[in-house]
């Protein structure tokens, strides 16, 4: 599922104690980040957690109230110009020019990057090809789907061959197919060695794409690590059994001798530490006489991690 952790050779982003408040409202309450070159790093959190604010600070859009950060070796304070030369930013809302055609949008970026005319055209043509926008190249984005707009947006970001890309909620609002395409684009970029800082509300997305994840809640990082490390931090896997009546539940509880029972729901939750072996064992002990109405195998996912760490209501309650 998730890609292996890359050994961080050089540091792409190092931030210490980033703080930002708007009036009384504290948006970031002291955030430290260390992201290696070539790494895909996900900031995971709900709306209002401070993800976009971190991106805006690190991409030189707004200054932090306190804290320091270096991006690709340049200090944000004083080195913003040098930072801008090596980063690419794709914001939450597609920043494409709706009155220019797809191709003109790319050429505009090329001009603003001061690329020579021939290179401008060659790169634009290559990116249109790569992002499956050749047929739409001469049309304005008004006719594009959400996924196409997002692809054009990323293509515009790539005109400058950035070594570090910020992707702020790259798949929010996309349909499943477009989301999958976007994931593939991000994987391809990562394979080229581009450092990626992405923000997302989707745990699955972070799990699929990121080498490391920082879970952000109300302006603070509440956990950080690889997807597997984070999953290890919540109580282990279990098997959940549901029965038709209390008699069956009693019988099962006697036969298994472990697990927690829920008499109201007629459920029994049994630890599942050894995967298939636990399951086979469990079925053997239940025998043929105890009628099990439903059986589900539960492995902790990032959602469990998220709810466990952010202290929000449990998954069952919110679903």
């Amino acid at each position, binding site marked *: 599922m998730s890609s292996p952790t890359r050994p961080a050779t050089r540091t792409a982003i190092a931030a210490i104690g980033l703080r930002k408040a708007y009036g009384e409202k504290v948006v970031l309450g002291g955030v430290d980040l260390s992201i290696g070159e070539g790494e895909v790093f996900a900031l995971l959190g709900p709306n209002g957690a401070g993800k976009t604010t971190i991106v805006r600070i690190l991409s030189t859009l707004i200054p932090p109230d306190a804290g320091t950060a270096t991006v690709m070796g340049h200090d944000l304070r004083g080195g913003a110009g040098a930072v801008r030369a090596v980063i690419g*930013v794709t914001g939450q809302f597609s920043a494409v020019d709706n009155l220019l055609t797809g191709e003109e949008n790319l050429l505009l970026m090329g001009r603003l*990057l001061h690329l020579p005319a021939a290179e401008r055209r060659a790169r634009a043509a290559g990116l249109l090809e790569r992002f499956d926008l050749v047929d739409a190249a001469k049309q304005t984005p008004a006719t594009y789907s959400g996924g196409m707009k997002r692809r054009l947006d990323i293509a515009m970001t790539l005109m400058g061959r950035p070594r570090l890309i910020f992707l702020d909620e790259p798949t929010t609002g996309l349909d499943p197919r477009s989301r999958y395409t976007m994931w593939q684009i991000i994987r391809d970029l990562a394979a080229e060695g581009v450092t990626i800082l992405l923000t997302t509300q989707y745990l699955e997305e972070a799990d699929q794409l990121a080498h490391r994840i920082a879970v952000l809640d109300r302006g603070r990082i509440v956990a950080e690590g690889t997807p597997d490390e984070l999953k290890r931090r919540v109580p282990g896997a279990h098997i959940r059994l549901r029965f038709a009546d209390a008699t069956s539940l009693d019988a099962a509880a006697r036969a298994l001798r472990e697990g927690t029972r829920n008499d109201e729901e007629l459920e029994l939750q049994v630890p599942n530490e050894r995967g298939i072996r636990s399951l086979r064992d469990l079925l053997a002990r239940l025998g043929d006489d105890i009628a099990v109405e439903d059986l589900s195998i539960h492995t902790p996912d990032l959602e469990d991690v998220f709810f466990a760490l952010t202290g929000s209501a449990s998954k069952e309650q919110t679903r």
Partner: protein
Amino acid sequence: MTALTTLAMAAQDSATMLWREIKHSIRLLRLLIVTAIVVPVVMLVLFDYVLGETLGHGLGDAARGALYVDYLVPGILVMTVAGGCGPTAINVSVDMTGGFVDRIRTMAVVRGALLAGHVGVSVLRMLVATAAVTAVALLLGFRPKASVEDWFAVVGIVAAFSFALAWLSAAIGLVTKSVAAANGSTLPLSFLLPFLSSTFVPADSMPAGVRWFAANQPFTAVVDSLRALLTGAPAGNTPYLALAWCAAIALVSFLWAQAAFRRGTGDMIRIT
């Protein structure tokens, strides 16, 4: 970076933004022709043919014996320039709220280039519209008595007024929070101020409450100077007064726009 390459970069980026804004204008051509040319022409026809008879009689000495159309056209030209404010504020606001400003602020693009593009093409649009409306006015019976020197002065004042209002519209586009608000905020410029000036009738014919304001506001200075130059009447110091107003509006708007652009969108909205 040397001063020369910085200057070259600024010129290149500004040219890019001009190119972009000209493309925008071409894509929006039909809309722009309606707002910038058709609307002033309709105003001209309404006020000249429909209301002109009575208004012309009412002018008395102010008309200096000329037809009402000759009194009216200089005001319509100023209205034409002011009509260009809406599109400019809208285009700036689209960039500001749609993420384009954020995008270029994370790139190594010369800071002033975007606004230079907007303002430059805005002035261009206003001048083209004014020329077109002048041509229609001539077809409808406008008979200016300006000398060649007067015409140069007219073009200069129209250009200066366009420049001032283009910066003002850009600043409005930068500080308003939505495209609709940007458009709405230019209505006083394109509609209210022309009526509260000497565009249609002399300021001293107005009720006491608005008379002082109408007589002393910048639109009146610009209309009066153009009217004097185009009808061959003594212009006095009105051209200098008009140019001073233009310079003041341009300077204040420029500083306002710079401050608003530097502040960006970041500290006001989208704080997640």
